[in-house]
C-alpha cells in the first residue's frame, strides 16, 4: 500500500497549475487559466469560486465534452420509456448513443418501452439538399405502425437539421394532430451551445412547451413528490424511490429515468419537487415553481452521511409523521451502513481520488468517498455552471484543485503530479489510466455496475471502489519481468 502523502497546500496547487499551463500556446493558456482554482480556507469559507465555466471549449485540446444532442436525447428525453425518440439527421449520433447510458427501464423493449433502441432518419444527401420534413412525417406514421403502443414521439435534432432550415416544428404540429399523440420537436442540434448543457435546457423547454401540465392525477395527497433529474443509471432512481416511499411520501413521477409520458405530464400536481441532478433539470423546477407554485429542493443520495442528511431535510418539509418515519428508516439502515464502512474504510482510508464528471457527481459523490475515508484531491466538471462550482468549493478541503472542462492533457498531468490512487471519469478517459496503473471507475455509467444511489447503492459503491483500488492486477504493472 502506498504511503499517504500530505495534501498539497494551496500554493503548491497553484504552482502545479502554472506548470500545467506552460504547455499551452499563449492565447489558449490565458483562456484556460481561468478554468482552474485551488480551494483555500478563505474561498471554502466564503463559497466564492472564480472558475470560469459554461464557455466554449478551445478547439483541438481534446475536451471531454459532448454536445447539445447528447444533453437532450442522451440525458433528458432518451429515458422516457414509452415514447419513441427519433435521432433526426445522419445515422451516427443515434448509433453512438444507443443503449450506452444504462438508463434502466421496466417494460418490453420495442413493444412498450423504447429506450435501448436506435431510431433514426438516417439522412442521405438528398435529404440535405431537399430537406427532411416529408421524410419526418412519414417516419412518424411508420412509428405508429411499428410501435402501436408508443405514447408519443420526440424529434431530437442533429446538426444538419438546423443548418438546412427544416421546419420540424410544423411537422410536429401536423403529426401531433394527425396521430393524436404528442410529436415534440427538440432543437438540440449539436453545434448549439458549448456542451451538453444547452441541450438540457432546450430539452427542458420542450417538455415545458409540449408536455408539462397536460396530464391529470385522479387523487392528490399531501405527500406527493416528484423525483427530478435522476436518470436511473443502473437503477439509481429505483434505489432512491424506495427510501422516499419508506418515509411515507408518494412519488408520482420520475424525471426521467424509467419515466413515462404520463409521469412527465402530471408532475405539476406534485407538492414538492426533489431534484438530484440540478444541472440538467433546474430549468423545469423553476418553471413549475413559477407556473404552479411548486417548491423544489435539492437532495443528495450518495453515501450514508449525505443520504441521512437529505432524508431529514426532505422530511422537514412535511409533518411529524414523515419526520418520524425518516428517523425510523435511518435507524433501520444505520447499522448496516456502519458495517459497510467498517469493512471498507480500513481498505480505502486516505486514498487520493481525482474526479471529472458531468455537472453533478464531481461534487455530489464527495461525501460518499469521504464516508469511506477517501480524499478528493482534484475535481471538476465537464459542463457545470457557476452554481455548481460555488456549491462544490465549500465541500472541499484546503488545497484541492478545481477545474472546468479539463483537457485530456490537464487530467493526465495532474493525475501524475498528485500521485492519485483512483480516477473517476468516463470511458474516453478510462483506459489511459489503466495503462498508467491508476485504478479507475467510470462515473457516468457506474462502469456497468450500480445502482450507487441510496443505501442499497452505497453498498455497491463501496464494493466497487474497493475492487478498483485493491485489485491484485495493479501489482503486475511494471516495465520489466
Amino acid at each position, binding site marked *: 500500500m502506498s504511503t499517504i502523502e500530505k495534501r498539497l497546500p494551496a500554493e503548491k496547487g497553484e504552482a502545479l497549475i502554472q506548470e500545467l499551463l506552460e504547455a*499551452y*500556446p499563449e492565447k*489558449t493558456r490565458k483562456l484556460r487559466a481561468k478554468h482552474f482554482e485551488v480551494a483555500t480556507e478563505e474561498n471554502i469559507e466564503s463559497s466564492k469560486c472564480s472558475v470560469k465555466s459554461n464557455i466554449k471549449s*478551445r*478547439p*483541438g*485540446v*481534446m*475536451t*471531454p465534452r*459532448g*454536445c447539445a444532442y447528447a444533453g437532450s436525447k442522451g440525458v433528458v428525453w432518451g429515458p422516457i420509456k414509452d415514447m419513441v425518440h427519433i435521432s433526426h439527421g*445522419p*445515422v*451516427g449520433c443515434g448509433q*453512438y448513443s444507443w443503449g450506452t447510458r444504462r438508463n*434502466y427501464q*421496466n417494460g418490453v423493449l*420495442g*413493444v*412498450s418501452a423504447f429506450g435501448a*433502441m*436506435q431510431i433514426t*432518419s*438516417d*439522412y*442521405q444527401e438528398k*435529404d440535405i439538399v431537399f430537406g427532411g420534413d416529408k421524410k419526418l412525417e412519414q417516419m412518424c406514421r*411508420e412509428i405508429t405502425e411499428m410501435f*402501436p403502443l408508443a405514447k408519443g414521439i420526440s424529434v431530437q435534432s*442533429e*446538426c*444538419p437539421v438546423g*443548418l*438546412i432550415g427544416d421546419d420540424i416544428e410544423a411537422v410536429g404540429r401536423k403529426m401531433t394532430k394527425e396521430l393524436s399523440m404528442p410529436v415534440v420537436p427538440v432543437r438540440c442540434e*449539436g*453545434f448549439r451551445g458549448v456542451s451538453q448543457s444547452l441541450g438540457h435546457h432546450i430539452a427542458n423547454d420542450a417538455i415545458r412547451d409540449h408536455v408539462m401540465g397536460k396530464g391529470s392525477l385522479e387523487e392528490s395527497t399531501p405527500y406527493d413528490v416528484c423525483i427530478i433529474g435522476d436518470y436511473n443509471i*443502473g*437503477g439509481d432512481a*429505483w434505489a432512491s*424511490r424506495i427510501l422516499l*416511499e419508506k418515509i411515507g411520501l408518494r412519488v408520482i413521477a420520475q424525471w426521467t429515468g424509467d419515466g*413515462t409520458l*404520463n409521469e412527465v405530464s402530471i408532475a405539476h400536481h406534485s407538492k414538492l419537487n426533489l431534484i438530484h441532478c440540478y444541472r440538467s433539470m433546474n430549468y423545469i423546477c423553476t418553471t413549475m415553481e413559477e407556473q404552479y407554485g411548486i417548491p423544489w429542493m435539492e437532495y443528495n443520495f450518495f453515501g450514508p452521511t449525505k443520504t441521512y442528511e437529505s432524508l431529514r431535510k426532505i422530511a422537514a418539509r412535511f409533518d411529524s409523521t414523515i419526520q418520524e418515519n425518516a428517523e425510523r428508516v435511518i435507524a433501520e439502515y444505520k447499522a*448496516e451502513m456502519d*458495517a459497510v464502512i467498517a*469493512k471498507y474504510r480500513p481498505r480505502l482510508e486516505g486514498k487520493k481520488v481525482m474526479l471529472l464528471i458531468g455537472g453533478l457527481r464531481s461534487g455530489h459523490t464527495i461525501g460518499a468517498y469521504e464516508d469511506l475515508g477517501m480524499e478528493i484531491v482534484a475535481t471538476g466538471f465537464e459542463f457545470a455552471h457557476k452554481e455548481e462550482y460555488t456549491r462544490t468549493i465549500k465541500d472541499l478541503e484546503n488545497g484541492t484543485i478545481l477545474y472546468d472542462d479539463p483537457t485530456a492533457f490537464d487530467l493526465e498531468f495532474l493525475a501524475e503530479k498528485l500521485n492519485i490512487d483512483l480516477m473517476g471519469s*468516463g*470511458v*474516453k478517459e*478510462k*483506459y489511459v489510466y489503466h*495503462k*498508467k496503473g491508476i485504478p479507475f471507475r467510470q462515473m457516468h455509467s457506474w462502469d456497468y455496475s*450500480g*445502482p450507487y444511489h441510496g443505501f442499497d447503492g452505497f*453498498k*455497491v459503491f463501496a464494493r466497487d471502489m474497493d475492487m478498483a483500488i485493491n485489485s491484485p492486477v495493479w501489482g503486475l*504493472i*511494471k516495465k520489466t519481468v
Partner: protein
Amino acid sequence: MSDSFVTRDHNTLFASGEYKEQVERKRQFENPCSLQEVESTLEYTKTKEYAEKNFAREALVINPAKACQPLGAVLASLGFAKTLPFVQGSQGCVAYFRSHLARHFKEPVPAVSSSMTEDAAVFGGMNNLIEGLRNATALYKPEMIAMSTTCMAEVIGDDLSSFIGNARNQGAIPEDFPIAFANTPSFVGSHITGYDSMMRSMLSYLAERGGAVPAEAPAKEGAVNVVMGFDTYTGDFAEVKRLFSLLGADLTVLGDYSDNLDSPADGEYHYYYGGTTPEQVQAAPGAAGTIFLQKYSTKKTSVMIKEKWNQETVSFFSPIGVAATDKLLAEASRLTGKPIPEELIKERGRVVDAYTDSHPYLHGRRVAMAGDPDFLLGLISFCLEVGLEPVHIVCTNGDKDFEEEANELLKSSPYGIDGKVYIGKDLWHMRSLLITDPVDFVYGSTHMKYAAKDSNTPLIRVGFPIFDRHHLHRYPIIGYQGALNLLTLTVNSVLEKLDEDSPGYNFDLVR
C-alpha cells in the same frame, strides 16, 4: 470473510420483493398499457403480417448496423505513426467516436475536434481549424495530423484545403507539417466509406510528399503491401503479419492501427505506440503489389493505388475460412515469388482436421448474419465450406455490387441455396426474419443482441462493435488461425445450446 450485510447490485437487487412491489406502485402513475395489451402486441410483432409491414417501411430506420463516415476516418487515421486524428466540426461527434471505439477495443482513443459552434455555423470553421491545429500540436505533439469532417462542416461547406493553407501562413503549424485531409460527410455511405476516404488521402499524401512520384519508387524485391480495411480485430493484424512472415515476404501493412489499439499496461501511457511510418508509405509503391483484405471498404483507395502508384492491386473480401485464406496466400505467393512454405501447408491441414472433427455439429444448420459487406462475404464463404447454410444476410451499408457478389457466392454452393441478401435493411428487419423464419444461430455485433433475444436465437458475436464481451477482438477471425478461432466459437456455441436445451437423457459427456 463473512459480512453482516449482503451486497446486491443491479443484476439481482431489483428482483427482491420490495423492489417488485415498488414497480407495481409506480405503475399507477405511468398510465401504462395493460399487460394483456402488451402481451398481444408483442405477439403481433412476431406475426408475418407485422413482418410485411416492417419490410414496407420506407423512411423509418430502426437499429441499423452501420455508423457514420468520420468514425471510419478516425480509425484509419490511427493506423499511421504519431498521427493525431483531427475532426473539423462539432465536438460532440468526436466524443462519440472516441467512446464508441474505446468501448470496443477497451483502449484509449486520442482524437481532437475543432469544437465548432453557432458562430462557426455562420462564419465558417476556419478560425476553429487554425486554433485547433495550434493547440493540438502544442499539447499532443503529433508528427502528423489526419483531418476528417463532421456533417456540420460538410453542410456549411468548409474548405479544408484553403483553411490548412491559411493555418500554415499564420504560423499555427510549421510550413512543412504534414496534414492529410478527407471529406467525410455522415449523410453519405457509412463508416467504411469514411475509412476508405481517409486511407486514400493518407496514402496519396504521404507517397507524394516532397514531390515524390510514387510510380517511380525504387522496386523492392519480395515486398508486398496489405491494406486491412475497416477491420476491428487487432488479432487479424497479428495473423496477417504471421502468415506473411512464414511466407518470407517483406510485408508493409498500410494503416496499421493494431499497436495503437492494443498497447501494454506497463505504468506509462503514450499517445502514439505504432502505426505505419511516412517512410514505409513512401517506399510502398516499390512493392510488387498491394493486397486489400476488404474490397468494399477500400474501393477508392485501391483505385488510387492502381492509378497513381501504377501498382498491381488485388482485392478480396475478408479472408475468413480456409478457402479464402488459400486464395490470399496464393496471390501473396504469386506477387512476391515466394513459395508457400511447408509449415503453412501443415497448419492448413490442422485447421481442416479441426473442421472434420466439428462438421457433424455444423452441417445443415441454418445461419443468419449482419454486418459490413466484406465481412459478410467472408462469413458466407466460411459457412459454405463447413456445411452451414446462410439464410438471412442483412447488410445495412451494402450496395448493389455487394448484393450481386453475395448472391453469386451463395449460388456457388448447394449450402447457399436458401440464402437471401438484404441490402439497406436494419436489425429490426432482422428481428422479423429471425422470428418468422427461425435459424439455428446468428452472427453479428453486440447490437444484434436485442433481435437475437427477442427471437430466442443464439448470437455468436463477430464484427463491430462488440461492447458486451471481452477480448474477442484480440483473436483473429481471418487467416488459418482465424478460421480455427471462428470454428471453435461456432461449434462450442452449438454444443452449449445442446446442453442448455437438453431434457436430461442426452446431456452427453462426450460430443
